């Protein structure tokens, strides 16, 4: 039998694993943590102020205009939804494929998914002209006629896709956490902790019956989430693909968006994991360089898929023979927003090529920087798709430009405040690595370990 490199380093005993992971929740965080939390929180408060201003005064505060009626809000919405995809992919698809290396990063990736979806979910509401009526998107018996919704609209599909995704990924995350919450409950040294974790663990006792139901539920949820990985971003891409605009109206969008989402999601996971490794050194044994390398490989693969999609769009524009399509793509690369296009190409296609080198794949600082580039590139991908297609469409008389205002930047940067606040809170109150899933992959009790 070939010796595989161990998934967890440091020859941990079972107790050590529990101590390491639960310990993070049980100790008082240091100043560094509070510093980070306060910064994130400040940004979050700023975000709230910006959104309040937009809701109170009007959409006109943002840069959106005629003809570019969608701007930062939708760009950032798609960006965050995309980020969410890595979590589900890691926890559901890799679970179904029995990829054991996923265990130590799954929890955090899932948490990232949940927070990214929460962050994203706010944008379609904020971008409305009358956000206080957002519930009109939902089909429920009402006193407005009753007014039903338009099932032909991709935005309606979006509502279902995203709410389903949010619910399923939250359920998946939470169910997966039950055994670990029970561990925290058992280790709790005071009443309050015991009460909170006790309630959260839903009476988990670790009996055979518990485990058997748990495993089955987890498997079913994984099976449920798997199609979501593909469907959610496909449906988000329909917002564009179903519209008739040159640059939007293309059938390549669903797979292209999914690949892009996984790409950006893994980019974000790598960013966060690098930070976790830096701030919680003992997690280095769990989130090993092997993990990081695996993720970098996926980034490289999906990056090339996205690159292929970019090229394919150009080919199709040429092949279609439609001058409108052709113009839209030439304008993307060489029009007034050429810089955004080339930022996108550089960040998404060229820079990840560095991962061909094993050294870089395993170099934490390098991959951190590259993953940041991937995040930037993927935000710009949505910028390119939305802004450059809208700003010059069919009738040249309508052409215009889109300029971001203070409020655009506020909403974009502020959303990171919301995401990071949630993430920082999570890392100190919930088990950031799945204890129950890491333990079975330990070499403990296996021959090789002795």
């Amino acid at each position, binding site marked *: 039998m070939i010796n595989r490199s161990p998934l967890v380093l440091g020859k941990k005993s079972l107790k050590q694993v529990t101590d390491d992971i639960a310990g993070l929740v049980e100790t008082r965080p240091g100043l560094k943590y509070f510093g980070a939390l306060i910064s994130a929180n400040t940004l979050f408060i700023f975000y709230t102020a910006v959104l309040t201003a937009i809701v109170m005064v009007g959409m006109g505060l943002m840069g959106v205009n005629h003809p570019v009626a969608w701007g930062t809000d939708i760009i950032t919405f798609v960006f965050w939804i995309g980020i969410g995809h890595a979590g589900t992919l890691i926890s559901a698809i890799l679970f179904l494929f029995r990829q054991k290396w996923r265990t130590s990063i799954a929890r955090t990736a899932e948490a990232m998914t949940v927070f990214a979806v929460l962050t994203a979910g706010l944008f379609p509401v904020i971008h409305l002209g009358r956000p206080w009526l957002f519930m*009109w*998107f939902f089909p429920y018996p009402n006193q407005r006629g009753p007014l039903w919704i338009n099932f032909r609209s991709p*935005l309606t599909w979006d509502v279902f896709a995203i709410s389903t995704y949010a619910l399923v990924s939250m359920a998946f995350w939470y169910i997966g956490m039950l055994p670990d919450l029970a561990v925290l409950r058992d280790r709790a040294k005071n009443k309050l902790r015991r009460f909170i974790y006790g309630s959260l663990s839903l009476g988990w006792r670790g009996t055979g019956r518990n485990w058997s139901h748990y495993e089955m539920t987890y498997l079913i949820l994984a099976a449920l989430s798997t199609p979501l990985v593909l469907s959610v971003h496909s449906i988000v891409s329909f917002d564009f693909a179903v519209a*008739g605009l040159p640059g939007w109206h293309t059938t390549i969008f669903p797979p292209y968006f999914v690949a892009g989402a996984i790409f950006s999601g893994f980019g974000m996971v790598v960013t966060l994991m690098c930070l976790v490794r830096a701030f919680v050194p003992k997690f280095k044994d769990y989130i090993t360089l092997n993990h990081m390398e695996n993720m970098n490989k996926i980034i490289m693969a999906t990056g090339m898929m996205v690159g292929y999609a970019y090229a394919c769009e150009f080919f199709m524009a040429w092949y279609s023979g439609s*001058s409108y399509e052709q113009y839209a793509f030439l304008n993307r690369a060489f029009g007034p927003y050429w810089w955004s296009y080339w930022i996108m190409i550089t960040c998404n296609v060229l820079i990840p090529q560095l991962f061909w080198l094993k050294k870089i794949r395993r170099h934490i600082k390098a991959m951190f920087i590259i993953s940041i580039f991937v995040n930037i590139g993927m935000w710009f991908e949505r910028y390119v798709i939305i802004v450059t297609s809208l700003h010059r*469409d069919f009738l040249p*008389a309508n052409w*215009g430009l889109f300029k971001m205002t203070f409020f655009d930047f506020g909403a974009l940067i502020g959303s990171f405040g919301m995401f990071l606040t949630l993430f920082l809170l999570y890392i100190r109150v919930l088990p950031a690595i799945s204890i129950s899933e890491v333990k079975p992959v330990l070499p403990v009790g296996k021959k090789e370990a002795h």
Partner: protein
Amino acid sequence: MSKDQKQYWLSLEDYKNSPAIQESVKKEFLSFLPTQEEISSSRREFLQIMGAGLALASAGCMRRPTEKLVPYVNRPVDIIPGEANYYASSYYDGGEGFSTVIKTREGRPIKIEGNEEAKLLNGQGLSPRACAYILSLYDPERLKAPQQNLFNDERTNKESIRISFEELDKATVEELKKGSTALLTNRIPSPSTQKLFKAFRSVFKAEHYVWEPLSREDLALAQKHSYGKSVVPSYNISKAQFIWSLNCDFLGAYLSPTEFQRQFAKTRKPTDQMSRLVALESLMSLTGSNADERHRIQNKDNLTALMALTDQLIKQGAFSAPARLKQLMKSYQPAFAGLNIPAKKWEEWAGHLIQNKGKSLILFGGLRGKDSAQAHTLVNFLNSALKNDGRTVNHSQHYPYEPGSYSQMEKLIDKLNKGQVQRLIVHGLNPVYSYPDKKKFLSALKKAELVIYTGDRIDETGFYADYVVPDSHPLEKWSDWEFKKGVWTIQQPAIRPLYNTRAFEDSLISWIKLSGSQQISADNFYEFIKQNWEKGRAFSFWDKFLKAGVYGSNQLKTSASRSFRVEALNSIKKHQSPVKQKYSLQLYESSALKQGDLSNVAWLMEFPDPVTKICWENYLCVSPKTAVQEKLKEGEVLLIQAGDQKLQAPVHIQPGQDDHTLALAVGYGRTKAGFVGNNKGVNAYPLAQSDDFINIPVEIKKTNQFIPLANAQGHHSMEGRDIILETTLEEFKQDPSSGMPHSHKVPSMWSKHKYKGHKWGMSIDLNSCNGCGTCMLACQSENNIPTVGKKYVLQGREMHWIRVDRYYKGDPSQPEAVHQPIVCMHCDNAPCETVCPVLATVHSTEGTNDMIYNRCVGTRYCSNNCPYKVRRFNWFDYTKREEPLNLVLNPDVTVRHRGVMEKCSFCVQKIQEGKARAKKENRELKDGDVQTACQLACPAEAITFGDLNDSESKVSQLFHAKNSYALLDDMLNTKPAVKYRTKIRNKKPSGKPKGHYKKEEAHH
């Protein structure tokens, strides 16, 4: 304290001083605090009381405060709530006159429409100004009563106080009796007003001076030289087959453009009789953009160009040249080459003119210039020689009443300075703003003892007047007009004066009466007009006149040609080689602001210029070549120096502009117009101090500043796309579908909408449309469309439901221009309808695409998916309008909330109104019962609206015409309910092959 000493007692017990009382005195509190037991035993009671209190409180909340509605107890005759009343009226905008119909609702005017009875005037067409002047009625900054200015030592305004008309009249009449009074007005072509002026002059021994900043005196003067009588002729454009226009924007600004647009459109039907328009211009005007052939020329070469044409006409034997002309020709001939127009062009034009003798027209004229009168004289000679006089040059139905003149104004200034005029009444003018030499006028004005000004606010001139006696708004006062000789119109007021203002004519009458004169028997101007009109006429005449709004001739007359006095040619000077200068400045009038009197009307300020598409300010137009040479960028601020006058204006690079001419519009840069009009652009009048508006030598200097110009159009080339399809007359005659790419059958997966009743549709004739943009303002007025201001126009957030796209084609220095009105296409396969998640935009059973504002949540997806981008979003709360501006709102159209999308509705309120009327009259809806606002106002009748299911209707015939096409339909299968008919130019075919998406030369 003994009992006896106690003086006051509380009760009998106290008086008796019983032991219980003695006990109680020792206690601090007379009552006891409740014990624990007592409280717990009253818990039920407490709950009861609380419950009762709650019930009471909630019962109180349930009833809303009573609001009593009081119906009309005595309903005013003719007013039915919810139904509009229409009154025939008139509007004189200072240049052209309109016969109008005023729509009022519940007693307030809400919209201006044209009067189709006025066949010789504007008909049902209007101009942007005629649509928009209604907004000035509700201007919140209008004076609400007469004001007296208290002056400081420099005779500038220190403080204004409100006075009553009684005080004012008393003070005024006392002063006026002293004599040496002068009346300064603009040209007022109103018979009754003129009669009143005459009476006023004789009563007070006053003089009357007529001046206007945009005077046509050159034209009148040349007429006097040429024919012995000073008239401002009209032009029978509809009778002209070949129009050769030299720097004359007769479609945009000259004399009576709305009338000319109407006539011109009639000649543009693609038949053998289709007219041909050749324009030679220094700047790209609306006329030039509609020309079949356009060339650039400098204003200094106007005479030379006319001479070149004359030369060819003589050579081709059109007439024998008088000796003087031969003499002149010799001096001009060497300069012909400098015109940069190929010799064969002159030959061709002369040929056309000779061919169309009596059916051609040579036009010249803009603002006043040094040699304009000479050029007019030569034009008169040519038109006479070509037998056009009396046929296309209509001297019998001319524009009566002398045009205002600068020489009169100078005489007045002189007399003021000499003290011969002591009392001055200024009416209808704002000379402190619009007289080029403001200083000269002001110093003269300050010498007057009394200045009375009739403006509706303390504006530039009002600031220096002793009394500002606000004239009532045209919608509030009576008048009669003779805009054209033999065509009289009546101006009925549509509302009582909103404030304590008085018509100027009424002021004159009361002053005449107060002076003790018996000259006028009428008590007010209304009676005065009525007396004038009823004298010697049938009893029923007056009512008929009021009802029709117009009286007199309604057919274009042709008359005998006048004999041209050859000696008039002596006034033409020999060619002098002009002083070498790099750039000369031409001032021009914009079709929205003209002389600058309606500057506080936001609709006009936000009205994109028909050619440049820029709004909210004026700008210096330079040619693309000049921009390259001087390294100028759009919006770059230049310092312009003409003599000792300097001003700064941003640059606009205008395709088609002459390379040596810079152009700047007058009418902007008001400083005391009000909130909307103040400091928008610069005042260009001071640059015209040398009596020349069109050829001012200037120097330009860079300032390194930028002012972004609010251009409502994003891009100005069609990029070779099939947007406006064009053909030539010759090709059209062979194949009416020429110019159209062959259409593709687009398969559809579904069975299409079924329209059982009506199916509304629109056909727009690109060949008739001249791009004037009146439709935009008619729509704005009908549909309560807000204005957003320059800042937001820059962000592309203007709200117009109909817009006119203008594209250039060909070489940027000599481009062809085309105009295309864009409304909501009401597509059968509407891209907007499918993407709205909340069903806020839905397809009606009659084919319209309806926007349901209160359902809209504002995703703006519909706008993204609309290939025509006709949807407009309420980015902010535009519903707040300062009172009384809210009174102009059309109650039939919802005022849209912040955050909802809006767009053209095909005037759905008018469709409903038409259907209701037909039902009430128990009949089927007829073709023409429903007319959209844009259609009604279009002077060129380019828009036809109606029922496509009715095969007899005009629109369904036009819709299925061979040259009718739907925009982008081939590409997107949207099946629009709006179709365009191809633009047809009367020029030689260029021989381009037909094909899909043919590429044309594209320029920005």
